[in-house]
């Protein structure tokens, strides 16, 4: 690119441009450059403004109002936030979501890594294995959950039938408050295709010479895994954990469908008669948020819950990125 015209030296004998003219020309060039940059950025700016900034600001505003979706919002200050502490289903929702983050997310990440590692070592049929393990990721969440409800049905499902034939205990799975979340975790592990593919690409990208050097130093398979593979793919592990935690905070569809269908659909009075079935074990934070906003028309309170969720997601991500310096290879630049 050529330098801006304002840097050109004046020809000998030509009249010296006055200082004001030089500044004006420079300002015009700066403005043109900014407009050019803005023009290139405009698709993103429009998308960001319409689909992120506007909803975020509106949600923050609504969280300070009493809003029933049908009449105008009315200012109530921080009353919705104060109510959170006393809402009886707020903390159970937090606990259930926390369980998914602390148990389901690590389980899913570890499982995805193990599958990717296995596929990466396959000498034959790697493409077939890759396809088989990736396919579940394409299943829509509702369909996948319904499929698992069928498979895990305590009476008619094939899994418990097989367990019965083997004279093993036949759990109630989604109907047992102690097993509902583990069952959902299994569902999550089944659908790890997307993150598995990323792990696989990362594993195949680890330089071979690092393994050769480790072998020459006498490192066994476990030592090569711990000292070569994991550090090399640690940025991908960080990515998987951060996205997993955010997904865990927003965990809704599978929990809602499992609780509703296992609980008998909309049987009984009330829209949420199966809410959190069984015994509140699937009442995740976003499920309660949805219930408040769209079933009870407490959209102001639901907005406050959404803002709190956003703040938590932001904080957790910040903490993860902050600590990543200590365990992510090349993560010194992460602040």
């Amino acid at each position, binding site marked *: 690119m050529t330098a801006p015209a304002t840097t050109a030296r004046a020809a000998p004998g030509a009249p010296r441009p006055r200082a004001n003219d030089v500044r004006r020309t420079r300002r015009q060039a700066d403005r043109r450059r900014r407009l050019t940059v803005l023009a290139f950025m405009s698709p993103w700016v429009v998308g960001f403004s319409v689909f992120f900034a506007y909803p975020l600001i509106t949600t923050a505003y609504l969280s300070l109002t*009493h809003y*029933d*979706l*049908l*009449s105008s919002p*009315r200012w*109530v200050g921080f*009353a*919705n936030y*104060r*109510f959170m502490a*006393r*809402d*009886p*289903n707020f903390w159970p929702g937090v606990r259930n979501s926390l369980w998914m983050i602390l148990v389901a997310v690590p389980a899913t990440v570890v499982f995805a890594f193990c599958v990717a590692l296995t596929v990466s070592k396959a000498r034959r049929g790697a493409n077939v294995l890759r396809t088989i393990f990736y396919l579940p990721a394409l299943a829509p969440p509702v369909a996948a959950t319904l499929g698992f*409800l069928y498979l895990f*049905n*305590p*009476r*008619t499902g094939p899994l418990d039938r097989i367990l019965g034939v083997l004279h093993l205990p036949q759990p*109630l799975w989604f*109907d047992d*408050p102690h097993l509902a979340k583990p069952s959902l975790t299994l569902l999550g592990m089944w659908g790890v295709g997307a993150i598995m593919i990323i792990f696989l690409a990362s594993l195949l990208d680890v330089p071979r010479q690092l393994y050769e050097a480790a072998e020459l130093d006498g490192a066994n398979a476990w030592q090569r895994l711990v000292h070569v593979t994991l550090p090399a793919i640690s940025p991908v592990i960080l990515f998987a954990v951060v996205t997993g935690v955010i997904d865990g905070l927003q965990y809704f569809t599978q929990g809602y469908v499992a609780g509703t*269908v*296992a*609980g*008998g*659909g909309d*049987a*009984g*009075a*009330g*829209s*949420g*008669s*199966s*809410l*959190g*079935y*069984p*015994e*509140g074990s699937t*009442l995740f934070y976003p499920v309660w948020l949805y*219930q408040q906003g*769209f*079933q*009870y*028309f*407490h959209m*102001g*309170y639901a907005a406050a819950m959404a803002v709190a969720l956003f703040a938590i997601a932001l904080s957790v991500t910040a903490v993860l990125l902050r600590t990543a310096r200590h365990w992510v290879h090349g993560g010194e630049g992460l602040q």
Partner: protein
Amino acid sequence: MTIRRAILTATTVLSLAACGGGGSGGNAASPAPTDHRPVTITLWSGFTDRELAIIGQAVDRFHSAKPWITVKSIGGQDDDKIVKAIRGGNAPDAALSFSADRLGSYCSSGAWIDLGPYIKRDKVDVNAFPEPSQGYTSYQAKRCALPALADVYGLYYNTDLLKAAGYSEPPRTASELMDMAVKLTTYNNDGSIKVAGFVPQWGFYEMAPAHVAPAWGATWLDKDGRSGLAKDPHWQAMLQWQKKFVDTIGYDKLKRFTASTGSSEFSASNLFETGRLAMNIDGEYRTAFIHSEHPELHYDTAPFPVDDSQPDLYGAGYVTGNLIGIPKTSTGRNREAAWELVKFLATDTGAQVLLSNGLRNVPTTVDALQSGDLTPDAQFAKFLDIYRNPHTTSTPVTASGSADQDLLTAYVDKYQAGQGGDLARELAKVDKQIDDQLAQSDGGAP
């Protein structure tokens, strides 16, 4: 001059006040229209296929009576779509909702207009509707809907299974129900339930506290309009009976038996319809399902058994129903035409009978209930009697929708599993939770 100016000023102020009054409510009924220029209105309902066609027949009858009004009947529209349309300003002129729980929200927000002025203007007698239906169509003295058919709950029993067990009559009391259910329950070799006498587990099909409460005379609100579950001893009596019932058969056995049912309630594999359940609580609509899916089933219906200490409650039951109203987005001549349609579908005996015979729901006017054109079979007729019973009740209308029922159901789900703690204390906590939700709806967080 001064007097003339004062009169002018007063007249102006009064005129503005009159305009303001009408505008703020946006709802004052103008004089009955005499303008019969053609007008087309839309009616949304959740009906589809065969049922939508029956609504179509009623609409055709309306068009014959009011030929200048054409109604475009659109089915498959649930309450979520109605709410979205109201927010978007493109709602139908009239809406028929299946969710009586939503009325409080529609009324308190003004999303559905108050029909009071129209009812008064056209001298519609609300006493033409039985009392429970009057209750679930109004909220805090605003009647934002009229009833358009009701769902009434009672006991279904398999006559073959009862006969085989030596019974010729259905149970009338709660203890009889428990005794008969225990005797009627049969087991497989592995100890699992083969045929259940009755499934007392909350959450199974229509076995919900709200549906059983009338059999104990349990009331939701205290005299101050606050949640009164802990104050009304009937709730504790009912929940203790149910817990004892569950424990007698075995919570785990019941759980395993019902876990397989999933969403079979509204399918041909319904346990009662397939003979795997001897007795069940259900709505009158089940008669149509059985007629269509399992006409070979020998069954009968009866009022749900009542608390042993309150035999006078026998014959009553739970009722809820469809609402028909006018979204606030309907204006001018369309609103007037929509009111004519609402009034017709809710109060015209011929329309009510046509809808009841076709949809197999209970008609919601006294005249229609007594009409000779009503063609109930013996099983359906029992629900007409339950509906007429003076002790038949519905759930209270609140601006929080079904929050009261949901919160109680969430607790009883734990209680029946043995995780409910001290019943009285926990019910008081549920009361507090419900009151907090009501306060949220009434104007912000409590």
